[in-house]
């Protein structure tokens, strides 16, 4: 592996917009779209319209928090039709390695070029807590499988495959989970397994994120993988408290809660906090972009990107 990011856009691994912009050294913006709990193409299109033009690629969540939703790949196909670039999310919770490799081929076959590999929230959090959690492979093994399919034209079994899926491979990282000192090592494992880019857990505790980034830099990982910092605008005090208490792996410092408590307009304060986080992470060496997850608040992404000075988005 090279010591520096490969900036030669002739050496693209997948050729996605996201990859091209990152290799050019642009500060990228990705955003997220949560598919509906129903068979509504229109619902996907409506959310996509709100986001179009305000980010370089758009994550389609894969039954997030283990709630059944319209599938990530199907949503991605709808976005492709609208001229938008999807980032397919794939968790290890609901499929074994046969189904996953099949879906990887399917996604690539449909023209999707970015894939985010996740372990997945435990099924107990969703609406089908009695479901069998599959976890045939974990996220690190999944990264390795996708990389092997793309770069070695081989299935996990070692059998050869004919047309490789050209995918820009993503992974998540949570700097706020424990044990803290292991988190950069875990990132290194993901990079070694095949991650080309990282989208982090939502950042509210910037200080801790900076500490993690310095460990990441000490290991030289910021030069081997593109790191996009995760941000989410808080809509209400209730949401902040809920995330602090109930969302696995979230770190919402007390001062954020206090600020919202003291604010007259909670939404406006939530947006301000988000903008401040973006401003701070932009300055951290090794951060290549932001990933804006406006959960069920997609319509706010234009305002955030505008006020953060991230518009217009560049043409790859």
């Amino acid at each position, binding site marked *: 592996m090279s010591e520096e990011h490969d900036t030669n856009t002739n050496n693209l691994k997948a050729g996605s917009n996201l990859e091209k912009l990152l290799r050019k050294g642009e500060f990228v913006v990705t955003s997220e779209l949560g598919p509906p709990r129903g068979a509504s193409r229109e619902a996907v299109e409506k959310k996509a319209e709100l986001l179009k033009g305000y980010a370089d690629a758009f994550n389609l969540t894969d039954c997030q928090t283990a709630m059944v939703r319209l599938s990530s790949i199907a949503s991605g196909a709808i976005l492709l039709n609208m001229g938008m670039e999807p980032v397919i999310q794939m968790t290890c919770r609901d499929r074994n390695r046969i189904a996953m490799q099949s879906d990887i081929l399917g996604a690539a076959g449909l023209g999707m070029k970015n894939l985010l590999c996740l372990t997945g929230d435990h099924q107990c959090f969703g609406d089908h807590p009695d479901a069998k*959690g599959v976890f*045939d492979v974990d996220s690190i093994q999944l990264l390795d499988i996708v990389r092997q399919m793309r770069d070695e034209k081989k299935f996990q079994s070692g059998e050869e495959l004919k047309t490789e899926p050209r995918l820009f491979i993503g992974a998540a990282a949570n700097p706020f989970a424990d044990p803290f000192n292991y988190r950069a090592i*875990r990132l290194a494992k993901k990079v070694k397994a095949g991650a080309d880019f990282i989208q982090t857990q939502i950042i509210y505790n910037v200080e801790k994120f900076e500490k993690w980034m310095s460990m990441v830099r000490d290991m030289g990982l910021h030069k081997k993988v593109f790191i996009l910092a995760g941000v989410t605008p808080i809509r209400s005090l209730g949401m902040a408290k809920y995330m602090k208490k109930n969302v*696995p792996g979230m770190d919402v410092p007390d001062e954020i809660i206090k600020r919202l408590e003291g604010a007259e307009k909670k939404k406006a304060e939530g947006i301000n906090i988000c903008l401040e986080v973006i401003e701070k992470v932009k300055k951290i060496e090794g951060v290549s972009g932001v990933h804006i997850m406006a959960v069920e608040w997609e319509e706010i992404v234009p305002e955030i990107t505008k006020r953060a000075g991230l518009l217009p988005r560049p043409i790859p």
Partner: protein
Amino acid sequence: MIVAESKPFKEIYDLVKDFSKICVIGCGDCVTVCHTGGQKQVEELALKLRIAAKRDGRELEVREETVLRQCEQEYVEPVGNYVNDYDAVVSIACGVGVQTLAEKYTPVRVVPGLNTTFMGAPVEPGLFLERCAGCGDCVLDETGGFCPISRCSKSLLNGPCGGSMDGKCEVSEDVPCVWNQIYVQLDKQQKMHYMDDIRPPKKWSVSTGSSPRKLEIKHLQMEKE
């Protein structure tokens, strides 16, 4: 040991509602240690069944028996002396014991009085915790003696997921994150390189849910004609 818990009494009572003569058979092994399937629990269950039947104005004769190990053919031999005199057997052994009786005394009805839950250990009085998933491919040498298959809610092989906080699993405050425990242990053992290694996808083909497994020890087997 195999850990099993009692089915709710109402469920057991409903299972035997069509019978007038039943035999409750316990086991002297694991489930005796669990206090769910030993001789004492046989007596208690038989008594409760008799009381419930009397309350409902039903005729119900209940015999009480306990065998030393219900999972072994030779230990259930004595059951043959009386089992055919009864309409059904309520076995309060693990699922292996239930099946040993059902196979040996076919077509006698054998119904389970326990839910077999896991392979585990008594860690303090009245508390049993899962310790082994019988996955058929042990990794405990690399994980400091803590099993990530049975003790990680996602059976992860490559370290703690993003839901590990303050040593707890994202699933519940009551569940320790085993990968946190492994991390601490390997640090003490100065074997942290095991945390860096990427473990490949597991061979689930030798685990439960693949196909029924067997163990053959050739020198103990009798020559087949």
